[in-house]
């Protein structure tokens, strides 16, 4: 078919070819967006940035967003106002107006009324606690933003300040055209039952030079007020990992309690300043927003069953004296004799690791959860050339490069793997 020079796509239009010919649409087609898809929006009334997160679900429930009636009304007006333009027809404007006044929920009341709104009602997610990255913040600048003019902090500045020295004028002046970057994470918090541990250490009267360690293991339910909800700020991945030995170092000195929630990162909103913004300045409407998506599919979540503690399950090389099952919220109490505090700490740590009630999220996909390249095992070849490994390494490098230069991966998106230990 000969191209028609009169039909050319321009801003806000889309040209498509199909078996019947070519079509020019005046508005962009509705593209499918995955659950948890995040976009940021400037709220002029509140003079703040907020995020819209497309409805995502954990075990079929939508997380709640804590916001106010005023923010909801401000966001609605801004969001739907942007959809109306000079080309909007009367019917479309009327439909949007209906949605803008709360077609999917009653958000009446004073502006200060605090509301917990399910994510599927599209509440604005207030973005609090932006962290600085780049010239006036963390040196870990994603390649995507380095390409857009975000400079790293001067390499020697921190060292000069730590030595008590005075930085030179040059080191405090950002390069021409430098842009600043701010980031705020959005994550989901899932309430759960948590493990508790109380330890008492006393000198053994039976064996000189040894101690008796009593460890009572119990569970604590999440308070009723704790709901499946959206959180914002700086996501600490360690919060969701199992206890590590460093964290357990003072187990003998204090009671230990797991957190009564699990968390998973949904997305990160980045705000990019105009060129030459003054270091330390706050984001406003002139900044540009980007969102890096980290979750792409609805999630399932589960946690291990709380199991009674049996001393023979846990101790190896340490003498367990008693294993007593407790009632109520207790899972068990164990006592053991040890000559070494390190042994006692290690034993207590082992119990907590074995008994941890940390839950896991997964994506129900019926199969794989990754779009990563499969690993290719190295193969010895007589000519010394390993084409498989070379091709794999090259593909991996290319993929990493593409990933760094884009903020988001393309379809098919990665999912969360199921934790097989739940089946034990």
């Amino acid at each position, binding site marked *: 078919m000969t191209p028609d020079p009169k039909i050319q796509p321009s801003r806000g239009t889309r040209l498509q070819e199909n078996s019947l010919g070519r079509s020019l649409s005046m508005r962009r087609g509705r593209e499918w967006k995955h659950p948890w898809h995040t976009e940021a929006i400037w709220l002029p009334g509140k003079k703040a940035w907020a995020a819209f997160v497309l409805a995502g679900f954990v075990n079929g429930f939508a997380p709640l967003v804590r916001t106010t009636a005023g923010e909801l009304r401000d966001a609605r007006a801004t969001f739907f106002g942007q959809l109306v333009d000079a080309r909007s027809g009367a019917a479309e404007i009327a439909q949007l107006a209906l949605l803008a006044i709360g077609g999917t929920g009653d958000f009446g009341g004073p502006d200060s009324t605090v509301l917990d709104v399910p994510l599927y009602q599209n509440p604005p997610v207030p973005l609090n606690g932006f962290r600085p990255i780049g010239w006036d913040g963390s040196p870990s600048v994603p390649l995507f933003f380095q390409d857009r003019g975000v400079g790293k902090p001067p390499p020697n500045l921190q060292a000069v300040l730590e030595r008590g020295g005075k930085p030179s004028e040059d080191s405090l002046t950002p390069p021409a055209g430098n842009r600043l970057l701010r980031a705020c994470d959005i994550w989901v918090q899932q309430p759960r039952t948590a493990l508790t541990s109380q330890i008492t250490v006393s000198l053994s009267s039976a064996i000189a030079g040894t101690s008796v360690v009593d460890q009572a293991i119990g569970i604590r339910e999440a308070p009723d007020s704790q709901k499946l909800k959206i959180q914002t700020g700086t996501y600490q991945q360690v919060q969701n990992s199992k206890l590590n030995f460093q964290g357990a170092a003072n187990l003998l000195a204090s009671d230990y309690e797991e957190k009564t929630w699990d968390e998973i990162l949904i997305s990160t909103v980045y705000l990019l300043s105009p060129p030459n913004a003054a270091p330390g300045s706050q984001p406003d409407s002139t900044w540009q927003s980007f969102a890096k998506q980290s979750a792409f599919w609805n999630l399932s979540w589960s946690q291990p069953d709380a199991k009674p503690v049996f001393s023979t399950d846990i101790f190896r090389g340490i003498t367990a004296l008693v294993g007593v099952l407790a009632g109520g919220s207790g899972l068990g109490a164990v006592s053991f004799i040890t000559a070494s505090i390190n042994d006692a700490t290690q034993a207590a740590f082992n119990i907590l690791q074995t008994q941890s009630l940390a839950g896991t999220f997964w994506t*129900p996909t*019926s199969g794989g959860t990754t779009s990563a390249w499969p690993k290719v095992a190295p193969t010895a070849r007589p000519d010394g050339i390993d084409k498989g490994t070379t091709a794999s390494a090259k593909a991996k490098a290319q993929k990493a490069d593409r990933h760094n230069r884009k903020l988001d991966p393309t379809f098919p998106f990665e999912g969360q793997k*199921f934790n097989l230990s739940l089946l034990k």
Partner: protein
Amino acid sequence: MDFRHPFLVTAGAKEARVAAGLILANIAVQPLIGSVPIGGDDKRQQPVLRLDASLINEANESWVCVEATPDAEGNLDEKGEASKVEVVQSRHPIADVGPTGRTPLALLVRRGTGWQVFQIAMFHLRYVTSQPANGPRRHFFL
């Protein structure tokens, strides 16, 4: 772009339809509505799930779910005599302990006399169970 995937739920005021999808266990089965596979078969049309407006929680939410009741060994059987896999409407989306497991396919939110649908399941589902020595069976849809 429309994303037409397994278990896609569409709902009218009084009934819902669920696109064909598989529960993958020891065998692969389509859940039933009544006695008909959710996607229909050679002889029967795609069945509809009658929606009950009273099956909602305090937030006007209801769920279209798949429920699996395996046999004593945790398996599904071809003829559905010792086990059962069906699509139901429920006030609660999850049941993972006991003889029957349940997982959500879509959230239905009551709006006036109709329903707003939010899709949850987007793939075929793998179904496994575990049977602890001293406890009830647990169900997982992966």
